[in-house]
């Protein structure tokens, strides 16, 4: 067989495999709404439980009092039917359940859910989810500026033999409102707080990467989302974030019908930690702008990679 014919046959086999992969994805009601890369790392449909999304707990040593206050406020995510006092359960996209991350009821409160993995190869990964957000319906008001933000972040570190020893934390949030102003724009951040020892041994460190300072506007990042007309009507929104673990750079971001230029985006970059090699963590979070709980609901998440 000539070299050219081997190449053509190999290409045909590859095309056929890709066509079959796409056909199977499109025919699967649970996955058809996603555009995953070739390997699905996890597909979380919250009708099957919490799927590994747990509470982000802060570091501590000897005494829980040593935990930074930003983390101390966190509580566990829950499975919700989006039950509303006036209309009953809203439900998810194709099941009754969604993951719910709820803040406490004071302005600036924040809560975070996390899923912790490690990676097998440094290459492209894709994070897709369907989400929505609302404030707690304590008032018969539109309340469209009560949720400060919802967002997500990754917490990443290369392998122990990789050489480029950095911990990299891309953050993106939809800043819905700040101090009552309806801003509706995407933001990222490149700064965390300085590391500080918690406890007395200097073996346990902590920093608060979700501190309210240091958020920067994404280029042309304004976007008006669907916020239905009373606090108890919700609509699901699609998000997709692409990141390359090889270069540790974002390669794409989409929200519904909009794709954003990520050339000006960067992540929080800090020296590698001595114990976090190949870390691949995903977080989702909510922040409230008023003394009222903010709720982030996630219908489903698909995390995929090319490896």
């Amino acid at each position, binding site marked *: 067989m000539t070299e050219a014919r081997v190449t053509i046959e190999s290409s045909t086999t590859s095309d056929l495999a890709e066509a079959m992969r796409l056909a199977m994805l499109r025919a699967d009601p649970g996955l058809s709404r996603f555009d995953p890369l070739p390997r699905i790392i996890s597909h979380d449909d919250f009708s*099957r*439980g*919490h799927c590994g999304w747990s*509470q982000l*707990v802060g570091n501590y040593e000897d005494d*829980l*009092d040593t*935990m930074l206050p930003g983390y*101390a406020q966190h*509580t*566990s995510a*829950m*499975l*919700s*039917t989006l*039950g*509303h*006092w006036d209309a009953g359960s809203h439900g998810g996209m194709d099941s009754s*359940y969604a993951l*719910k991350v*709820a803040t*406490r009821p004071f302005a600036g409160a924040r809560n975070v859910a996390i899923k912790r993995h490690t990676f097998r190869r440094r290459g492209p990964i894709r994070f897709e989810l369907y989400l929505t957000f609302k404030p*707690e*319906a*304590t008032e018969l008001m539109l309340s469209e500026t009560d949720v400060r933000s919802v967002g997500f972040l990754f917490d990443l570190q290369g392998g122990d033999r990789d050489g480029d020893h950095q911990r990299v934390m891309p953050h993106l949030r939809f800043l819905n409102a700040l101090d009552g102003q309806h801003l509706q724009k995407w933001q990222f951040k490149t700064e965390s707080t300085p590391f500080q020892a918690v406890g007395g041994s200097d073996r346990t460190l902590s920093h608060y990467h979700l501190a309210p300072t240091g958020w920067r506007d994404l280029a042309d990042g304004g976007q008006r989302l669907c916020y239905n007309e009373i606090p108890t009507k919700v609509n699901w929104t699609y998000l997709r974030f692409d990141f390359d673990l090889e270069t540790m750079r974002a390669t794409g971001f989409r929200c519904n019908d909009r794709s954003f230029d990520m050339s000006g985006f960067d992540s929080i970059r800090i020296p590698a930690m001595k114990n976090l090699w190949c870390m691949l963590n995903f977080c989702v979070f909510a922040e409230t702008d008023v003394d009222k*709980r903010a709720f982030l609901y996630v219908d489903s998440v698909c995390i995929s990679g090319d490896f």
Partner: protein
Amino acid sequence: MLPENITAIVARNERWSGHAASEPHEAGWAREAVIFVRALKEPEGDQPLARVEISPDGMRWLPEGSEAPMPSRKDSIAVLRVKHFGNWLRVAADFPAGAASTVLATIHLKA
């Protein structure tokens, strides 16, 4: 598939005094709940009863009927068990003046 079973931490290292309650937790999928309240520090003053509360909407709360004395010493634990609670759950206690307790409240849910 095995039935869902989850441990939720609803209050961690919180100092409860006056009218205190854990954050609302949705658990309509669960058939049973066991709630533990552990005193992380030596409780201060006379300790009240802890009670389970349920709600139609996560905002308005009523006692479910289950009660247990709040832990009287550091590291002792109160337990409450409920089987019929609809969707919303929390644990609450009313502390008299001068009383307080720093608690870890956990809800253990099973489908």
